[in-house]
């Protein structure tokens, strides 16, 4: 283990997974800093779950390397998973176990005391009566809560969460996000994949976007917002000037009287320069949404 690899909670290099006729992951290199909250985004089949399964040693990479705190995820898997909490799918719990028995079983396998169990039970609103029942009687949302508590109860240094808020109602989802932030404040790393882009935007500092098994981007959300596509509304004191559409990186989506809806690729500097010479009454420039950025990537070709 090198000093640099130890400062990364997760590092992958040229990670590739091929099945017979299908390449699920194609040379993905990630660097997840220790102590960060990191979002891993992509549509179904993009390679998110494959990456997570390689990290946990469930499957072996065809080529490339994956490490957790400097330990190889496959050849040194037990050390790699020493301080990891992983959210198993809600259907991958023993249906004949009670919630309490499953949490005890999971804590015993982790070899660490479940110091956060009470706090998590309160935050996710899972009562003692429910814990006494068999998991086969639980709804999907309740099983998701038990799976979350099982992953987090021993306060692991790295949390790997695949679709963590799936099945949670909005109120519980907010509580859960606060739990993640609190964990991060204690110095823990969170690596989460999610389809819920607003949630990722609220929680994560850094994201990676994958498509078709390839990495499209790995940047902080602030940098993504700064350099990627966003929308603006400009209100002129008169009709919309014709030269507006000719500026590089600026596309007119629609016009209506003095109002123009614009799409801007990258920095907003060129737009401000352009508007400085025009008779502008108002400019609405909402902060870019991760969803717009994400959709922007899906209109482009994958980066090699």
């Amino acid at each position, binding site marked *: 283990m090198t000093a640099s690899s130890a400062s990364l909670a997760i590092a992958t290099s040229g990670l590739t997974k091929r099945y017979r006729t299908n390449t699920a992951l194609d040379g993905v290199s990630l660097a997840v800093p220790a102590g960060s909250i990191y979002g891993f985004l992509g549509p179904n089949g993009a390679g998110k779950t494959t990456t997570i399964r390689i990290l946990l040693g469930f*499957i072996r990479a065809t080529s490339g390397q994956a490490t957790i705190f400097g330990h190889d995820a496959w050849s040194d898997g037990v050390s790699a998973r020493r301080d*990891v909490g992983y959210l*198993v799918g809600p259907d*991958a*719990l*023993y249906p*004949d176990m009670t919630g309490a028995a499953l949490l005890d079983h*999971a804590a015993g*396998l982790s070899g660490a005391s479940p110091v956060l169990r009470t706090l998590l039970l309160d935050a996710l609103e899972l009562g003692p009566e429910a814990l006494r029942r068999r998991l086969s009687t639980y709804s999907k949302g309740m099983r998701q809560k038990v799976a979350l508590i099982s992953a987090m109860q021993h306060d692991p240094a790295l949390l790997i969460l695949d679709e963590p808020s799936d099945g949670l109602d909005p109120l519980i989802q907010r509580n859960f996000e606060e739990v993640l932030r609190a964990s991060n404040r204690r110095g823990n790393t969170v690596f989460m994949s999610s389809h819920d882009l607003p949630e990722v935007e609220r929680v994560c500092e850094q994201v990676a976007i994958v498509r078709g098994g390839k990495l499209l981007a790995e940047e902080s959300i602030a940098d993504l917002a700064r350099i990627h596509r966003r929308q603006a509304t400009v209100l002129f004191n008169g009709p919309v000037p014709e030269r507006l559409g000719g500026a590089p990186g600026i596309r007119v989506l629609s016009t209506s009287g003095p109002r123009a809806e614009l799409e801007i690729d990258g920095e907003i500097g060129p737009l401000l320069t352009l508007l400085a010479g025009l008779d502008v009454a108002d400019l609405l420039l909402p902060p870019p949404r991760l969803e717009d950025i994400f959709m922007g990537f899906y209109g482009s070709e994958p980066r090699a």
Partner: protein
Amino acid sequence: MNALHRMTGRALLRWLPALAGLLILIFMFEIVQAPVIEAVGGAEGLSAIMERIPPALRAFARTRPEFMAMTSIAGYLSLGFIHPLYLILATSASIGFAARTLAGEMDRGTIQIALSRPVSRGSVYLSRVIGVAVISLLVALAGPAGMLAGWAAVRPSGEIPVAHFMPLAVNTFALCWAAGGIALLGAAWAAQAGRVLGWGLAIFILMYFVDYFASIWAMLRPFQPLSLFNWFDPGAILVTGAWPWLDIAVLLIVGFVATLGGYVVFRDRDLP
């Protein structure tokens, strides 16, 4: 080690209802043997019945009238341990356990609960191997226990060779261990409980019939050693009380090699 205990306990606990049912069935099957012998007129009555059975069906029982006449009550008792129903019950316990707790857990994803933690695949696999060994031991004891209980209840004429049940139990353990080892290898490979159960039972039934037909059809004799049942001879054990060391060794080695092969497959495979 704590994790290993937990996983073994958990796997056995999940299998407990099915195992308890199988053990009760084996116990009940053997407990009725002594009353049946008593009901048909003891050794003489059974010998007369055997005389009338066609040779092919005698082969099915893997015995002969002259053997029965010579061996008296011990020979008759051994029929309870070579009956196909007993053999299916005995081997299906370890096959079912291996299928459900290894292939079944891979299939359902529950194995991720252990493997996402600092637990090696070797530990997970070893917990299942220990489970197969425990189940094989219980099955090996259930049959003799049932037969002795039936004997104590009815007390038919003749002497029961109690000490001879010890090598029989060890040979039965070795048979179940070998079956369990092969099932573990299949479970590590296939990762679908239903498939392992189906193929496992089909292979063991095939082995039974290879062993059965080989005793009446010379062409099959070269294949007889490939059947696990070739290495299981309760008749000879109960009559002579001799320890069948070769049979036990072959079955233990088959079980060990299959178990080791299963470990290598499970260690290196991708989870479904």
